[in-house]
């Protein structure tokens, strides 16, 4: 498992407590799980994503990510409507491990509450949170 100093944590995204990342892309926000989460999970073998058009509140469960060993819930870092889901994960769930911030993206959201974004952690704040947790 990676040390905190070895984790890939880009600064063009913000981070949720449950290790999802969120990246603004114009009007929408793209979401996935971060390097810490994929490292802890191990080999991802299945991802359950919502339907396009579904709406969830911030912190509501939107799907599951399953590794060889266990199943974990995925939580909305911000609330909104699902505009798109990454269908590539059906055939290639391992993208979540190999490319968590790009090819392994999970959902694209139309945010419905601008305040949600401010509650997310910047990269530095997230690193501090990880250190505190350990």
């Amino acid at each position, binding site marked *: 498992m990676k040390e905190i100093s070895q984790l890939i944590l880009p600064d063009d995204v913000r981070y949720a407590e449950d290790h999802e990342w969120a990246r603004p892309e114009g009007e929408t926000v793209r979401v996935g799980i971060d390097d810490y989460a994929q490292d802890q999970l191990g080999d991802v073998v*299945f991802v359950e994503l919502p339907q396009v058009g579904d709406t969830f509140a911030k912190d509501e469960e939107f799907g599951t990510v399953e*590794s060889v060993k266990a*199943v974990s819930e995925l939580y909305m870092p911000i609330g909104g409507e699902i505009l798109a889901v990454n269908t590539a994960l059906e055939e290639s769930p391992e993208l979540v491990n190999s490319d968590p911030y790009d090819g392994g993206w999970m959902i694209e959201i139309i945010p419905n509450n601008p305040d949600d974004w401010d509650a997310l952690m910047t990269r530095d704040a997230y690193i501090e949170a990880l250190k505190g947790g350990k």
Partner: protein
Amino acid sequence: MHEEIGNTPLHDWHLSHGANMAVFGGYDMPLWYPSGAKKEHLTVLTNAGLFDTSHMAVIMVTGADAFELLQLCFTKDLNTCVGKKKAPLKPGRCVYGAYLNEHGELIDDAIVSQIEDNIYMIVVNAGMGGDVASHMTDYADLRDVEIIDLTDKIGKIDIQGPMAAGILMNVLKEPEKVFDEMFYFTFKGHFDSTSTFAGTVSFTDGTPLLLSRTGYTGEFGFEIFVNPDHLIGTWEMILAAGKKFDLIPCGLAARDSLRAGALLPLSHQDIGPWPFVNHRWLFTLPYNDDGTGFTKKFIGDEALHNIEESEHTCAFAGYDLRKVSTHDPVAYVLDSAGKEIGTVLTCVSDMAIGRHGDRIYSISSPDKPEGFNPKGLCCGFVKVKPKLLPGQIVELKDNRRKIKVMITDDIRPDRTARRPIKEMLKV
């Protein structure tokens, strides 16, 4: 019960090689290495994997009454337990069975190996050395027997997979001699350099070992017992020799998924502190030929006779790799009417198998369909009442999902554990 977490001598090696660690049986052990649990599982089927199993406990039982004490405490009848002809246990042979308490409940499962007359080596699960040793001591009475708990005093490595013998050929002295007549559940050599058997099996660097044709994956392979001072050297030597065979270190996640697909029970999960009946490992009990009784007296025998209808432990295989949880919360088993009839004990993904038609194939199946590229199936064990029969379909439900599974007699087919060494050396 000890609260401290133990480490095997390979602990630092696991950390420095990027293992994802977790505590199991009181030891901080590797779950998987950067290769990942899926690759580790598959590699054991196609090549070979190396497992640090030094967290398991070894107990020596010696003395004129050692046999008698084992007959009392261990479920197998050592007079009639080897091979189809049920021959007696003898030096160089080992047997799998269980220790039960007076209520017929499992204390632990174990492999008993006879080193020579009056000397037996018992291997039990991690953290169980003290409990099983003191259980035998409690029943020893005035018998002429010595019970020595060697927890943390023996190093053990499992090498499992079709290339296991081919790899060991490169690190053993006189390997052809060692492998001659080495059948499934036999062993040779000794880890203790002062034993008369030490030196019958050695590594090329002179390290004595006890080499046993056993293991927990259901695939062909060996368990290697060495003095713990030699553990790191042995581990690195085998990895180096195995490099050209693509041997990789494997963690507990792969061990767990491989053993479930091989229908091997995990102690204190699939077998445990409940009556040791109505399961698929009845060969561990000393039934007589017509199954009407036992061939010997042993602790727990009366209770097993007198048990009222208790739950049944059955194996299942699903239709895709998605699992249910087995704790926090436990998943329930629902019959075709939606009624709760039991709980899920083990649920893992065996990544090497898939369904085609009405059969399950493995990547090792010689008759697998063309282009077979399985995505894996969930599999494991349930504890239910009433009894379920192979072919019956049930649903497993946790707080996230409900999955359809079939009760089955076999999960991962075409396993290699029992294959003759000669055949495996041609791999």
